[in-house]
């Protein structure tokens, strides 16, 4: 017994990365355990019911799970845990949703008491129809998503074998001239297609768009793509035209400004969730064509109403793309039941090791506030505190100094508060992109940044998602949405795209010392630290007094007392 894995009684699995069997072990446990933290030495996985059901959905059985745990475990695995795994996994698939030739959608069970139990639930009753025989019951086709969601909450997840409609066929091919799908992208497409529907988890910058394109080429059917905003929509379109056989005319944009419906339509969440007089006027989009595939970009941001619509689309193939399944609202189980189980994931560090994303050096810069600022902070109203400490002059000065230090490198300054950004833009003589900037203007600025005409760009949170800035090598974040972890992940993603010269990316967080800014920063960074992107913490005065060379060697700097 000297395996790389330690199974804890609280259902976490600790994997020692440096162990010779670590890779084999990782492959064995990845199907059923969720990677929770991946710092440098010991990775933490967690056994959750969702994870175990994911594994069941992917065709693994309890025996395999137990075998993997027992085989690689360093210490004997707690018996109770093994029993629990078997018990949890056996809950999946006792209920199945199938298509019955005569009755349509049918919920049937191999275990009659379970069926009786769930039929007695008040939440299930309105979703089902007549009892066909003791083991099956009719489900209204429109409630397919709803019942899956409800059953998951009751702890009896249903296996959906009712299949998918093919949708309207439309020829789509990948145009792999001069590039090819990376191995992990191909695996992700394969994993998704094999499973029918589900979520692919890839780090920012790892080419999720191409996974979407690959899935479309598999489906060869009309596709609806849901993205977060218009800029992102344009980028999808640009990428699809470049990478596939699709032409501009085949791709429609459905947003606040344009309402095109074409074989491949890209719509924004915002337009879908616009409500007028109590109704969602743009919902007909879902029914406007016989879609064969629906792609959800940034699944972790999927707004609640979209979940509701998605529940009605259970007969279509659904692909979710995201960098993290962490949802700040904790609706991971809705993603599981409505979009599908996780079909593929790869830890960031692994893809970085393969050279597909750039390594990044994350530095938290602690700024000492001046005495007067501290006093003002101490007396500020509770709701104003974060805004105050996030936008102090001291931070502005440090930020400007950092930009100057990296003069000549493509630098993004990212922040939350518009007046802070305006001021920074003014001081740095850099354009500011914010909510009121028109789309045309945004794209013009982005192009200029890409071409290197501008080297510093100040962006508000509108640029958090899906903008593609290949040559950004330095990102400085000055303020954020409180402690949002996924925002932090997105922002880091801005600089992770591989650089032409292989230069290491740099990600600065400027933080006011001894304020809630610091607490929020700690919360945000925890996600990255757990992904293996550990922050170094520097004092601002030290950073500004030392030379740039010391900075790169900062790893060995003794921390200032």
């Amino acid at each position: 017994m000297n395996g790389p894995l330690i199974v804890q009684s609280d259902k976490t699995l600790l994997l020692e990365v440096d162990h010779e069997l670590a890779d084999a072990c990782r492959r064995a446990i990845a199907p059923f355990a969720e990677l929770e933290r991946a710092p440098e030495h010991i990775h933490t996985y967690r056994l959750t019911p969702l994870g175990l059901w994911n594994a069941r959905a992917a065709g693994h059985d309890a025996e395999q799970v137990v075998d993997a745990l027992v085989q690689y475990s360093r210490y004997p695995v707690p018996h109770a845990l093994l029993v629990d795994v078997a018990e949890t996994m056996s809950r999946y698939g006792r209920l199945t949703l199938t298509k019955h030739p005569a009755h349509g959608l049918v919920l049937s069970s191999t275990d009659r008491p379970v069926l009786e139990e769930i039929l007695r639930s008040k939440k299930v009753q309105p979703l089902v129809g007549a009892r066909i025989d003791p083991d099956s019951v009719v489900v209204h086709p429109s409630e397919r998503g709803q019942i899956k969601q409800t059953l998951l909450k009751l702890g009896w997840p249903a296996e959906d074998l009712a299949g998918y409609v093919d949708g309207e066929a439309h020829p789509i091919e990948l145009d792999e001239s001069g590039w090819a799908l990376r191995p992990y992208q191909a695996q992700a497409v394969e994993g998704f297609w094999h499973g029918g529907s589900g979520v692919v988890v890839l780090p920012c910058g790892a080419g999720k768009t191409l996974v979407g394109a690959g899935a479309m080429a598999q489906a060869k059917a009309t596709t609806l793509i849901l993205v977060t905003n218009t800029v992102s929509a344009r980028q999808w379109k640009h990428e699809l035209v470049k990478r596939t056989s699709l032409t501009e005319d085949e791709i429609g944009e459905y947003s606040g400004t344009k309402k095109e419906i074409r074989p491949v339509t890209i719509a924004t969440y915002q337009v879908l969730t616009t409500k007028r007089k109590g109704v969602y006027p743009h919902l007909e989009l879902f029914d406007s064509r016989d879609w064969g595939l629906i792609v959800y970009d940034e699944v972790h941001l999927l707004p609640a109403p979209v979940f509701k619509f998605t529940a009605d689309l259970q007969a279509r193939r659904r692909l979710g793309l995201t960098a993290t399944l962490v949802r700040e609202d904790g609706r991971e189980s809705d993603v599981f039941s409505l979009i599908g189980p996780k079909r593929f994931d790869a830890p960031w560090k692994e893809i970085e090791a393969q050279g597909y994303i750039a390594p990044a050096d994350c530095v938290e810069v602690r700024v000492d506030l001046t005495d007067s600022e501290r006093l003002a902070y101490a007396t500020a109203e509770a709701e104003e505190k974060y805004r105050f400490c996030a936008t102090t002059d001291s931070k502005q000065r440090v930020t400007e100094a950092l930009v100057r230090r990296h003069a000549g490198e493509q630098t993004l300054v990212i922040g939350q508060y518009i007046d802070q950004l305006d001021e920074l833009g003014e001081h740095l003589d850099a354009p500011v992109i914010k909510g009121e900037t028109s789309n045309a203007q945004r794209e013009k600025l982005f192009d200029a940044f890409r071409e290197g005409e501008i080297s510093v760009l100040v962006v508000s949170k509108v640029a958090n998602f899906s903008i593609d800035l290949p040559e950004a090598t330095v990102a400085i974040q000055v303020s954020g949405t409180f402690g949002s972890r996924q925002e932090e992940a997105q922002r880091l993603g801005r600089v992770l795209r591989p650089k032409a010269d292989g230069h290491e990316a740099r990600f600065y967080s400027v933080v006011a010392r001894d304020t809630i800014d610091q607490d929020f920063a700690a919360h945000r960074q925890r996600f990255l630290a757990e992904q293996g992107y550990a922050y170094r913490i520097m004092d601002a005065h030290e950073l500004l007094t030392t030379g740039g060379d010391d900075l790169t060697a900062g790893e060995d700097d003794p921390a200032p007392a």
Partner: protein
Amino acid sequence: MTTATPRTLAEELRTRSDRGLAGLLRARPDLLNPVPGDLTQLATRAGTRASVVRAVERLDTFALQTAEALAIAPDPCPYPTLAALMAGDAGNAAVAAALPRAVAALRAQALVWGPDDRLRLVRTARELLTPSPARPSPTGLGPTVAEATAGMSPGRIQEILAAAGLPATHDPVSAVAALTGLFCDRVRMAALLDTAPAEAVAVLDKLLWGPPYGAVTDRPAAHLQWLLDRGLLLPAGARNVVLPREAALHLRAGRAHHTPEPVPPALDPATARDPKLVDNAAASQAFTALATVEELLKEWDLGGPPVLRAGGLSVRDLKRTAVALDTTEPLAAFWLELAYAAGLIASDGEADERYAATPAAEDWLQLPDHQRWAALVAAWLPATRTPGVVGTADAKGRALAALGPHLDRSPAPEVRHRVLTLLATLPPGTSVPERALLSRLRWERPLRAATPATQPPAASPPPQGPAQAAPPSTAADSAAGPAPTDDLRSRLAQWTLVEAELLGVTGRGALATHGRTLLRTTGDTGPSAETDTGPRAETDADASTIAGALTPLTPAEATATAVRAAALLAPLLPEPVDHVLLQADLTAVAPGPLRRPLAEALAVLADIESKGGATVYRFTPASVRRALDAGRSAAELQEFLTTHSRTPVPQPLAYLIDDVARKHGQLRVGAASAYVRCDDDALLSEILADRRAAALRLRRLAPTVLAAQTAPEQLLDGLRAMGYAPAAESAAGDVLVARADSYRTPPRTAPTPVPDGPPPPDRTLLEAAVRAIRAGDLAATAERKPAAAPADTAPPTPGALPRTTSAETLATMQAAVLTSSPVWIGYVNADGAASQRVIAPVRVEGGYVTAYDHTSDEVRTYPLHRITGVSELADDAV
């Protein structure tokens, strides 16, 4: 030693070898208390009801069935007759093979004596096991024809004979014999039954396996009348009828039991696992057990929860402990009781009683792991306190609290030992389902399993008429019915299995190698328990084998075996590690159990996030501050981490420690009694420099503030004495104007005068006093009268209660039982009312006299201690 047939049990005992006698005494240790004077005394004692009940309760199913068969067989009973009763007319090879051993076992326990052709069941055992209307026998057989027809008119018996087709006889005795002969004759009986109406056969089928009683109306239906006419049903009381034993035996083809169980239920299906795997699983569980107990001690380190007034731990505290130990309440109760049994926690005995760790716990914590385990197991094996009952209510409806009173269940060690012994009979690494073990245990002690342990099977009062005449429809399936699992022994066995797993004595249900050594080995007092594959595996008919395997270990033995087992366990326990892995996400992972000092230091510096084989610690500003508060400096902490981490200390962690240390102690808090403030720094310096100010214990906190350890008034006086002119200041900073204030006490009442003597009594008081005195006087004189009477020789004064010493009372009673002569007793009932009664004692046992009371004309029981005295009656008195 004579070869003649022994006539009594005592005589037979006399012919037994010393080894046989030793076996008897080992099997029935109650006979040894006190050591009997001679064999007659031993035989008498072996025949007492209490002792026989005890011995019968310890019989296994087949021996019990054999004894039951003997009880319904003629006395004495030749072996072939017994064999026929057990195996039936058709014969049963398994029964035939097992029977000699069962008889030998009964004989060894002195429940059966006599040679094989004249087997005799000890009379008390016979009484216990013979069916009566009140105590239907498990055989489901009714009384014999002779018993059932006793008191029947001779004419009626002759009618029955005639109906059964037998010639008339001259007297009832021969008539009964003829009827019995018919019923016992298989051929003639079969012929008789062939003529029976179908409904009658159905009725017989219902009564066949018992209970043999049925109710009839005044005008029985034709088929019942047919049976009654032929004596196949005999009256038993006003409206009840009974199927006579001989008829039932005929219908059962001679079998006394529906299903004789000659062989113990097999322990299967067995699941074989790699013994190494089992040992490892058990070892890891053993380690977890240690960690859990340790955690409990740590949780209560600064004092545990309070003791309930009735003793024990409150439900809320139990819940809290369960949460702290990250387990369920029943398991928390187990850990608590285990620590209590091992002497690691106890009540502190203060006025405000709380639980706390004992000094022994300190020593325990210092021991190596395997010795700590040995201590726990040695406490567990012989413990009678059963945490399993915590949370339930006892017979009196009191809730049973963990660590509280009334948790002792005396069969616990025996059952525990037996369960482990049974597991040890399986090949290494093999486990069996719980129900297989339970049914085996039930087979070994059928009576113990059947009786709830709270109710001792005491002598029941004589029945008032034939007991609950069970309707014939509730026919006999008691033997075939599913066995209950909620009796005390089964539950004890279930708890044992759970607890053994928790303690790491078993692993994945199989007894681990170190668990095996926990049992008595051949070198110890008893016979080998390990080779004992069945209770009667040894051909030598030495019943003590069972007893030996069933006798639980004494605490001393348990300690010895636990130490032996721990030695085997030691190499399997995970080796403590002396390093952790530090990570940039501010966690530290200890990839195994940490050495104690390291674990303790780390527990202060970081919060434990996940436990198990490894431990995950998380560093937070609060945890680092805790370490700084504990007196460590930042440099020490850095040094500590560098020394014990196998990986470099990550920069964020080093920064965190320094950052917290930077702020640590920035604010200082202290106590001062008064202060001096002055805008003039120089003046304060002057005061501090003045030697007379030393007594005021001043300290300069800031240029313009001095703190003093003396009260403001003294400080004022002191400063004035030094020639300064200080002014007092209020809390708000205003100058206080000091003025001499008059001093007053709080509100007080004036003293009341103290008179010389008590006040004169009033009328009511006087009257009450006189009444009380008179009553007391009356009571005293009434008491004195019988006491004044001559005690020994003089016959008791008519009307006075007889008074004798308790020894005399007992002797007279026992004599009266033997001679069945009535006696005159004085008796005081539970309310204290004295009465005299004339009784004819039937039985004296257990401090009670069962007697026919002539005064009230019924059979009653009297506690001996309530009998004030006894005297024999003149012959003509009744």
